[in-house]
């Protein structure tokens, strides 16, 4: 079967504004001012979290990312929404990733820019997960087909509600990210068989006043 490898459509610098702003010395807290609000926020604008392939790790990562987002001065609503995005993407990474050696883990990168926040979650995959990648591709294309993610979300709710009570499949995670997280989803598989799923959310009005 032919590997499903996609090129990253993103422009790295535009999607990772936080990375551009990062300085070499992270030991002292620094603050920045923006035009939108006249208050000081910590300078650290990105975080990398390593997740062992263990479901219990999710709560730890949720707590760590929550702390990071709060420290940046984001509002409670945005912190909750982005933590949800991180959480749902890690769940997918753990469910569909291939963890054959100790160095195989899920990696979460969060970058906060001036107007967007990017969550990237990577995990190893192999031939056994290509059917999942096709479903992922299909799901993302399907969500993009809706102008309003709320419509996609309610449509999916109706479909899932009719399934058997004990059916384990939810299929709500990605559409929830688009709706509740107001995020644009994308993915690609690198030639090293690492799946990278990203969610980019707008930060308009996201800061605590």
């Amino acid at each position, binding site marked *: 079967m032919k590997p499903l490898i996609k090129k990253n459509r993103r422009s790295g610098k535009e999607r990772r504004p936080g990375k551009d702003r990062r300085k070499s010395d992270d030991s002292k807290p620094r603050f920045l001012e923006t035009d939108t609000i006249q208050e000081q926020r910590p300078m650290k604008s990105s975080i990398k979290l390593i997740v062992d392939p263990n*479901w219990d790790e*999710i*709560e730890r990562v*949720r707590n760590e990312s929550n702390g990071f987002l709060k420290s940046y001065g984001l509002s409670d*609503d945005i912190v*909750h*929404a982005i*933590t*949800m995005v991180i*959480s*749902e993407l890690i*769940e997918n990474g753990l*469910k569909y990733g291939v963890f054959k050696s100790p160095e195989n883990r899920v990696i979460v990168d969060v970058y906060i820019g001036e107007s967007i926040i990017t969550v990237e979650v990577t995990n190893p995959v192999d031939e056994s997960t290509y059917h999942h990648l096709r479903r992922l591709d299909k799901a993302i294309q399907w969500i993009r087909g809706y102008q309003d993610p*709320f419509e996609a*979300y*309610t449509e999916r*709710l*109706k479909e*899932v*509600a*009719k*399934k058997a*009570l*004990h*059916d*384990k499949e*939810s299929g*709500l*995670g990605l559409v*929830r990210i688009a*709706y*509740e997280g107001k995020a644009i989803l994308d993915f690609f598989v690198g030639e090293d068989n690492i799946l990278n799923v990203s969610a980019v959310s707008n930060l308009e009005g996201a800061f605590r006043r």
Partner: protein
Amino acid sequence: MGKGETFTSNLLTIEVNENEASFNIKWMGTSIEREPTRFITPILVDVIKKSIDCNKKIILDFRELGYMNSSTITPVIKILERAKRGRNQIEVLYQKSLKWQDLIFSALEIFQTKDRRIQIKGL
């Protein structure tokens, strides 16, 4: 005097309290289980059966829930869909001031019935 039972799985606690008019199911904590259906569905199915037998309303109160993953939404909407086609009365309560609850639970209005047997209420 009402009867009550408490169920806990990892970080999620579900309290079921029965009084003269209703079964109150209070959700508390965080639900991030891989397969929450295993824990939640038997509780909900049992209450659904009892509520039909006693002709009592079911109140699903999510106001004290801190977070639930998308797999937790699944058993809830399946129960609402079945109740919609049946005879049960279900009221879903959520905290409107919490944006995530407002977004998630207001979307469940698609399961509301015209005869108000299924109601979704943001308080």
